[in-house]
């Protein structure tokens, strides 16, 4: 994903930076260095907790009681790793989390992009009313729906199953809100009309004209949804109860409740839970950052 996404302006920013550095007089260099040092310090503070999580996951639990605390990796990683594996079914949890996050992402992107395209480019009776209802619930706290959702899952017999996590996630309105804006601005009505002349039906307009032109916005929505689903905690905590069908976040919180003082193992478990997502994020970071800033100023 990274290679495809980063191809927009190869090397451009570096050349600009280099040119402006050359033009800049030396006395402006000092504030530049100070600013970079401060930014670097901030970035280190941002990443430090993760680094410390990694350090603790490689130490015996007693290391955390030492003073000063350990700041470099130790030799206990394998032992901690094995203790995580023998305490909880972490691979199953990772499989479950991946399955939930991928399903939610694919379904949300398809369902929301289709609805957003209609809202953006078609006029039909009740359009404003429907969109208004969706937007009105957008800012309501999600806890308003939680109790009846749980009751519903009990009645359906879905409690403890992954589909109980997947389906309610499809009711969120963020994707519609996000993509509708994008389709309104980026898909030209003339192009759509031309495609109608060529005999394109609704689905082909959506699939062949609208979706390709919104690739950036769709990628952002996909990464955003994936991250949100991977990290979702409250609802999975409520509705999942089968030890073999838990997500990583629920497993982590159970580890903490049951083995709250075994920090070496806890941190190893936490590291396993966050690492895949961080790698995915770094691969798609350019697209994510572009989407985030684009949406903010609109």
């Amino acid at each position, binding site marked *: 994903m990274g290679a495809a996404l980063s191809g927009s302006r190869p090397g451009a920013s570096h050349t600009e930076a280099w040119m402006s550095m050359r033009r800049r007089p030396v006395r402006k260099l000092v504030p530049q260095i100070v600013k970079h040092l401060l930014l670097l310090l901030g970035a280190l503070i*941002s990443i430090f907790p993760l680094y410390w999580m990694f350090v603790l996951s490689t130490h015996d639990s007693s290391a955390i009681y030492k003073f000063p605390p350990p700041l470099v990796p130790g030799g206990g990683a394998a032992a901690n790793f094995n203790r995580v594996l023998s305490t909880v079914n972490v691979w199953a949890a990772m499989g479950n989390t991946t399955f939930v996050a991928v399903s939610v992402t694919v379904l949300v992107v398809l369902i929301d992009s289709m609805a957003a395209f209609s809202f953006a480019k078609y006029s039909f009776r009740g359009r404003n009313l*429907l969109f208004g209802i969706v937007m009105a619930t957008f800012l309501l706290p999600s806890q308003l729906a939680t109790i009846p959702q749980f009751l519903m899952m009990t009645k359906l017999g879905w409690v403890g199953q992954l589909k109980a996590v997947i389906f309610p996630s499809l009711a969120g309105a963020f994707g519609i809100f996000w993509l509708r804006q994008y389709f309104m601005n980026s898909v030209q009505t003339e192009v759509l009309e031309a495609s109608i002349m060529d005999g394109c039906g609704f689905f082909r307009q959506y699939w062949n004209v609208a979706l390709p032109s919104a690739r950036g916005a769709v990628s952002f929505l996909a990464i955003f949804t994936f991250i949100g689903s991977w990290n979702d905690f409250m609802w999975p905590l409520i509705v999942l109860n089968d030890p073999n069908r838990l997500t990583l976040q629920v497993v982590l919180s159970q580890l903490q409740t049951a083995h709250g003082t075994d920090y070496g193992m806890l941190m190893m478990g936490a590291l396993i839970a966050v690492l895949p997502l961080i790698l995915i994020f770094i691969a798609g970071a350019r697209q994510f950052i572009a989407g985030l800033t684009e949406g903010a100023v609109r």
Partner: protein
Amino acid sequence: MRGKRSVPAYLSLMPFFAAFAIFMMLPILFTLGIAFTDWKGIGKFHFVGTQNFQYLLGDPLFWKSLLNTVVIGIMATVPCLVLATLVALGLNSTVRFSNTYRVAYLIPNITSLVAMGILFSSIFSSNFGIANALLNWIGLSPIRWMQTEWGIKVAISTLSCWSFVGYNSLLILAGLQSIDKQVYEAAHLDGAGPVRTFFSITLPLLRPIVIFVTIMSTIGSLQSFTEAQVMTSSQTSGSANAGGVGNSGLTMVLYFYSVAFQENRYGYGATIAWGVMIVVVIGTIINWYVTKERS
């Protein structure tokens, strides 16, 4: 594009609206109904009138959770927005490594709050941990963070703040970059210094994005759950003990969760959910007016 063509448009909305109606609209309406019962998860719904709402108004734990939520929210949001603005200003004039910085600053936001909650409870551990090591290093005596009312709040709000600085700074950065460069050149020609430029030009022009970020942060912090749940969970079972020592980390949504899903008092839980909603609406309105007045 009207007429016959609206049929596919309706069809394309169907999947979303099916999910939306089943998992959002109906449950929200149903929550209103349950709030007027004393339903405990089994048996028939027993209508109790406005009893739950009267109880909510006199419930010391609810008011405590509201106060906690607001205090923790302010302790997290205010430093977070100030830091985010500073980071955004730094990134705005930086070309080199800017993408690397952005990724580094965003990583806290995408990292699971459960994992980070566990880590932060070790950072703020009473007998060890980085926070007390730092205090020791500058010559202060250690604090029993998770055993004191303010210690718990500091620990929770530090985690919230840390995880949102980067995200907010990128939103503010987007606002900064949409400001016309010519405005700055004019100010520079008029002899305005950097501080003055910031307060009389940058900040007013940033207002829309600052309002947006503030409102989103407020709504988010009024619904905070995971940080408090994870960092105070080892002692928790049921609402009386939720939120650590003296319920000082009990947020509204954590209270909702304990009442509904640990004690199975669904009727009263639904009432708390409506309480949360009213607080969120009031919070958003207050925010809107406060940020509007400054023009």
